[in-house]
């Protein structure tokens, strides 16, 4: 008998249970309850978010596969496609940072190679509590080494990402991992279970009692009782996954399989249900044949285990021997556990008994979709209502900003990542976007991840739109045109009307921005229930944008290049300070409104930068983001050979702190040889983009004058020491 307690532990409502009963025509047994609970969990069914996600723009000329598959696919011409996706692994990474982050990497890699693509790059977007706390440090240390251990071992370079710090992440860190793959257009694979009578093969690690209820865990708020969920933590095995990548790509390349699906959240259940659902068939498996690591596992446990590094394959019976042979070359077993059957059934046998017999469509497609209560959007603060006092010593503020972990160099992180393996990485971490050449062509791909959750907290719609805009702007800075978007939406509980209001607004912001840039959303991930002990994280939409560069020789880098080059600011200065890192670091305030964004204006700025880059005019380019103009100029100097500095002169008219540290959007700092200056200014004028020369490259100091005074004047070396030493200092202090 299924009672309320069982429903509670499975996060199923009474209404959902009644629906299950009517769908299967009888009361489900416990194993079936487990199956429905996992597949109808928020994590797998998107029941609270789907109606909103439908509004995202997903069409485009080059889209081969939009949302709904393991990853999105974009045609880049020349017979090649790119396959990419971002995934969260927030809850597991809080429970066990190293393994949680490592298995997050393993999971997103499987989403990519299951489609026939070789993974060529990883990026990670991370959010931690402030580093003053030993616990936050140890979470960060564990997460970074987990990502590094998995990515490095499997041989996929981790080429970029972002790291932010904020008190709201102390009990709910965010670990979002993005993966990009490259495939031949005619060798794409889907999670199909076609062909009645075809064999179903299980490959990879044995099944243990790992992460049972991982999907439901990721769909529930953390409370004190989370402790008891801990024994279910999965341990990643990157070596096994490396073998799987090679073996799977080989069977796909040889064309000996029909369909393939990784076992991610909800494990064997998910792949056993989803593969036939996509093909209008049924599937029958025998659990006694499933390779098991532990003794005495129940059908419930085998079906719901989230053991890592496993795949399900459908192959024609006459090809099974060949599939087996390829896997055995890579020291892996491919075990036949069932077959494709006629009719809409998922049938599971165990010890000769049928333990699950339910309609595939009920499990996969008929989960109720919710229109959860949405609060009236929180009224936005009026612009600049609380006056910001003048900070006095702007030089001191500049130093403080350079040393703020959110702005400081992330080298401590990315040095632990192999960012060069596969020898495609043209721009290493540290530039605006990562750039990977495509071997055998003159083209390159660029990727950037962005998301500013303080902006999103203060104004979810604008914050989300800015995340899209900034990711595209980062691509423009390296000379890449955006071709596709993926997104990871990290929010609190959807059962809170306030959170749903944030979510809805964020989707609106992403939609508007993607329409403005004419780029399709090809997929993404929603992570709800990022609440611990009742408090939600700031809404954190993380956008991943992939772009294309036609001529890899024209890639632009952020570092200043030549003494005497002209420094030009594309875009306009405004007095906005709300939500800025400056306001947070210098005044201890997280208030105001994030900077406004005019998407058409933003696009014009980016087009100007792109056109100049493609014409080979730009010596360097770097966008302005956290820390504003002063920090951007400093970063260009840090990236320059020989500690090349700059002399900038800004007109007054706007308060000095806003000029130096304000985060007005749609701005890019570029440098050109003086002879090319008129051409660049012309180009900008044609697009109606404000552009003005604000200084010259030279010397070894970062010198910024404002209306006659010189508030910033620091040797590059000294500034660099502050910037590069800030994060290591937290960890070394602990080690001594």
């Amino acid at each position, binding site marked *: 008998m299924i009672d309320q307690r069982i429903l509670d532990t499975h996060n199923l409502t009474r209404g959902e249970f009644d629906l299950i009963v009517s769908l299967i025509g009888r009361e489900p047994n416990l194993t079936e309850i487990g199956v429905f609970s996992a597949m109808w969990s928020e994590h797998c069914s998107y029941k609270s978010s789907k109606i909103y996600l439908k509004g995202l723009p997903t069409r485009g000329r080059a889209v081969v596969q939009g949302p709904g598959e393991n990853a999105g696919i974009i045609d880049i011409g020349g017979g090649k496609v790119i396959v990419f996706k971002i995934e969260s692994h927030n809850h597991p990474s809080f429970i066990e940072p190293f393994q949680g982050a490592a298995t997050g990497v393993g999971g997103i890699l499987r989403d990519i190679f299951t489609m026939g693509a070789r993974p060529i790059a990883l990026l990670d977007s991370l959010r931690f509590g402030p580093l003053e706390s030993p616990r936050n440090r140890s979470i960060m240390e564990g997460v970074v080494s987990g990502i590094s251990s998995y990515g490095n071992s499997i041989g996929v370079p981790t080429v970029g990402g972002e790291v932010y710090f904020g008190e709201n992440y102390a009990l709910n860190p965010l670990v979002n991992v993005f993966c990009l793959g490259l495939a031949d257009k005619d060798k794409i694979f889907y999670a199909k279970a076609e062909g009645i009578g075809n064999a179903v093969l299980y490959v990879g690690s044995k099944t243990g009692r790992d992460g049972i209820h991982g999907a439901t865990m990721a769909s529930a708020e953390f409370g004190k009782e989370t402790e008891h969920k801990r024994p279910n933590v999965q341990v990643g095995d990157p070596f096994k996954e490396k073998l799987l990548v090679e073996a799977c790509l080989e069977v796909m390349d040889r064309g000996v399989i029909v369909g393939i699906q990784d076992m991610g959240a909800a494990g064997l259940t998910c792949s056993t249900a989803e593969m036939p659902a996509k093909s209008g068939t049924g599937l029958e498996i025998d659990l006694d044949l499933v390779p098991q690591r532990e003794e005495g596992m129940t059908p419930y446990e085998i079906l719901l285990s989230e053991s890592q590094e496993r795949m399900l394959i459908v192959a024609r019976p006459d090809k099974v021997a060949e599939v087996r042979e390829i896997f055995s070359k890579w020291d892996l077993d491919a075990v036949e556990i069932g077959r494709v059957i006629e009719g809409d059934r998922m049938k599971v046998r165990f010890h000769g008994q049928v333990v699950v017999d339910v309609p595939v469509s009920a499990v996969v497609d008929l989960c109720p979709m919710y229109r959860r209560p949405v609060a009236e959007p929180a009224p936005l603060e009026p612009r600049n209502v609380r006056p910001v006092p003048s900070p006095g010593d702007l030089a001191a503020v500049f130093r403080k900003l350079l040393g703020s972990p959110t702005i400081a160099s992330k080298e401590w992180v*990315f040095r632990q990542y192999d960012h*060069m393996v596969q020898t495609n990485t043209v721009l290493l971490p540290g530039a605006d976007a990562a750039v990977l050449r495509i071997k055998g062509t003159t083209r390159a791909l660029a990727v950037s991840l962005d998301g500013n959750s303080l902006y999103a907290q203060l104004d979810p719609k604008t914050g989300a739109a800015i995340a899209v805009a900034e990711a595209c702007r980062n691509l423009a800075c390296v000379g890449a045109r955006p071709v596709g978007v993926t997104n990871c939406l990290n929010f609190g509980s959807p059962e809170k009307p306030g959170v749903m209001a944030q979510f809805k607004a964020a989707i609106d912001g992403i939609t508007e921005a993607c329409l403005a840039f004419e780029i399709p959303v090809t997929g993404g991930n929603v992570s709800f229930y990022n609440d611990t002990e009742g408090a939600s994280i700031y809404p954190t939409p993380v956008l991943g944008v992939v772009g294309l560069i036609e001529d890899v020789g024209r890639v632009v880098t952020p570092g200043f290049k030549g003494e005497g080059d002209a420094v030009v600011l594309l875009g306009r200065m405004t007095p906005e300070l709300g939500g800025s890192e400056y306001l947070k670091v210098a005044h201890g305030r997280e208030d105001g409104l994030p900077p406004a964004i005019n998407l058409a204006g933003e696009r014009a700025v980016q087009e100007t930068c792109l056109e100049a880059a493609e014409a080979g005019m730009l010596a360097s380019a770097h966008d302005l983001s956290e820390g504003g103009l002063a920090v951007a100029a400093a970063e260009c100097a840090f990236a320059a050979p020989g500690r090349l500095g700059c002399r900038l002169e800004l007109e007054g008219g706007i308060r000095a702190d806003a000029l130096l540290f304000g985060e007005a959007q749609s701005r890019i700092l570029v440098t050109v040889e003086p002879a090319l200056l008129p051409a660049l200014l012309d180009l900008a004028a044609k697009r109606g983009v404000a552009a003005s020369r604000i200084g010259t490259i030279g010397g070894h100091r970062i010198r910024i004058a404002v209306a006659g005074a010189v508030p910033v004047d620091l040797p590059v070396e000294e500034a660099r020491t502050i910037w590069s030493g800030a994060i290591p200092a937290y960890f070394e202090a602990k080690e001594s």
Partner: protein
Amino acid sequence: MKFGVVVFPGSNCDADTLYAFREVMGQPAVSLWHKDHDLAGVDCVVLPGGFSYGDYLRSGAIARFSPLMRDVREFADKGGLVLGICNGFQVLLELGLLPGAMLRNKHLKFLCRPVTLRVENDRTRFTRRARKERLLSIPIAHFDGNYYAPPETLREIEDRGQVAFRYVDADGRATPEANVNGSLNNIAGLVNARGNVLGMMPHPERAAERLLGSEDGRVIFESMISTL
């Protein structure tokens, strides 16, 4: 000159190394499967970087038992040219084709960054196109690159001029700060007494094209090609 790049389970720089020899250096190169007993008539065997067997027991410890390693040992014993890069260096140490062993990096972190190497011996078949004291910028990417040998072995290595490369600073000095992983005597690369086997932690195949930031690795490949 025909190169053979060995593929172990968990190798992940095999494709990069093949690409460097074939596409960048324009040499014939084939991959060699670790389970075979066939060196395919190559003139040089390359053990590539990566994480053979996940580096699970010790880096290189399990790969050295692969069937093909018997052939590689014979090949080396006969004077054949063998290059081990990163994990390949670790395999050569475990095999005993080179003296010593690798410990964890001194800071106990994986380290991926460019380093400056100083050519210590330009009379080997791997360095003859370089000049002694020449500085090379080549990236490293490893967790276990902290070279160790017992004192008497270390003395022998030094006396015989077996050190091929050392980690140095921008001015070419082998300082403790430049010693990124804690290796004894800043050792980054080592040849055997006979001079036909080189192991090195830095990745020359990642420094063979200007587009990727450095071409300094080519001098090693050019030296090898020039010996035949």
